[in-house]
């Protein structure tokens, strides 16, 4: 039996270590808010090394056992799960703690799409936000996000959305009038602004008139507008067509100062028509 005694003592020593690890002499806060001060209590006596380890951060500190080790505000800013190891010459213990994002939003990631689009489209503008605290932790507790789309000539559209898992999104209509809209996302006193350019849509209708110009006929459109009354941008192509005696000639003319104008040969009995994109204008029969 004699040889068994050292083995037994060694086992008791091992049990002692395990018991110490489970004895609760290492007292770690279960949760703290990111960046807040905290302390860890280490029982026993002598010197040890304390490690707070997680993918988000690592802290290593020499500590005196038998007291509290104080970590000032800002020591642990990255939200996440941390394992706390206490290692001394005689024992090793571990615990764990969670660092939660701070309650107060400090930053937003705001993506608005598209940055340029035609007026008067339903649900065509989207905005998505992620809400962060001052340590760039995603705040996963629900927060109210206010989305506002405004310009001087249209009523402001406002949607209030609760974040879910730190994210929120919305859809807005583009306004009836061209211009640069401000798209603002706001959480508490934090906001982020994007500019959404709204440009006129396609022509709504086309009307032209004709008048003699020597041996030619001059064709000119009225100012071309979209269905919301915005002037269609210069450069938009307007197509004039003249049909006579089974022949047809077509001319593409860009809008200039809101109108398109062209001179075409004056053939008595010719049919003159105008179009832009899918929009057809009026027809004129030239009898002079």
């Amino acid at each position, binding site marked *: 039996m004699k040889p068994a005694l050292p083995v037994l003592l060694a086992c008791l020593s091992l049990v002692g270590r395990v018991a110490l690890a489970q004895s609760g002499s290492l007292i770690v806060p279960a*949760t703290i808010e990111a960046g807040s001060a905290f302390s860890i209590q280490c029982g026993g006596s002598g010197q040890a*090394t304390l*490690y707070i*380890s*997680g*993918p*988000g*951060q*690592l*802290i*290593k500190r020499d500590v005196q056992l038998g007291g509290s080790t104080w970590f000032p505000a800002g020591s642990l800013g*990255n*939200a*996440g*799960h941390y*394992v706390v*190891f206490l*290692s001394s010459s005689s024992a*090793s*213990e*571990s615990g*764990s703690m*969670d660092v*939660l*994002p701070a309650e107060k939003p400090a930053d937003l990631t705001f*993506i608005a*799409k598209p940055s340029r689009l035609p007026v008067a489209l339903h*649900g065509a503008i*989207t*905005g*998505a936000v*992620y809400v962060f605290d001052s340590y*760039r*932790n*995603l705040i*996963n507790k629900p927060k109210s996000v206010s989305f506002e789309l405004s310009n001087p000539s249209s009523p402001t559209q406002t949607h209030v959305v609760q974040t*879910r*898992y*730190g*994210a929120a*999104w919305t*859809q807005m209509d583009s306004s009836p009038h061209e211009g640069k809209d401000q798209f603002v996302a706001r959480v508490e006193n934090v906001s982020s602004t994007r500019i959404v350019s709204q440009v006129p849509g396609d022509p709504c209708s086309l009307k032209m008139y004709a008048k003699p110009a020597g041996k030619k006929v001059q064709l000119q459109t009225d100012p071309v507008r979209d269905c919301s009354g915005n002037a269609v941008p210069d450069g938009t192509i307007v197509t004039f067509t003249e049909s006579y005696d089974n022949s047809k000639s077509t001319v593409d003319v860009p809008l200039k100062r809101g109108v398109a104008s062209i001179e075409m040969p004056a053939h008595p009995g010719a049919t003159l028509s105008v179009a832009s994109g899918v929009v057809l204008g009026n027809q004129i029969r030239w009898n002079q």
Partner: protein
Amino acid sequence: MKSLNSLILAASFGASIAAIGADRPAVRTDQPVVRVEPSNLQGPRELQQQTAKAAIQDYLDSWAVLGSAMSQNQPELLEKDFIGEAQDKLAATIKQQQINGVRTVYQDKSHDVKIVFYSPDGLSIELTDTVQYDEQLFDHDKAIGSARVRTRYLVVLTPTEVRWRVRIFQAQPE
């Protein structure tokens, strides 16, 4: 299609199926078990199954990269799978490990993944992952301790040239 067929998705991750189906080829025993829950997305954009599958696979791959980077103290390894905030924070941790002569071995054991948000612009996918992993800490190659961790990660992925990369990687209590 706003909900994903979890079974079909799970079938693409060999580790989980290997545990269930005997007719599959053997896989490494240290591969994590992966379970993908059906998504319940609210939003205007449909999440195609192929997109979801790619994002989840890239996310799972990122754990292997995280493990290598942390155990070898090589922050440059992170670049393949992490970007932005996540990469910066993980790289900072590795720098702290280097300064202190510490390295950490992370080995993921299981994942329970659920996609919770697909942004309307298609530029981000957010998922939750209830993960179990083993963490082992070494100080100048001396084993300090180990722990089995179970926690839930909030993860935001963004598309890059060829793969989804992790932009936000944050654990929170379940």
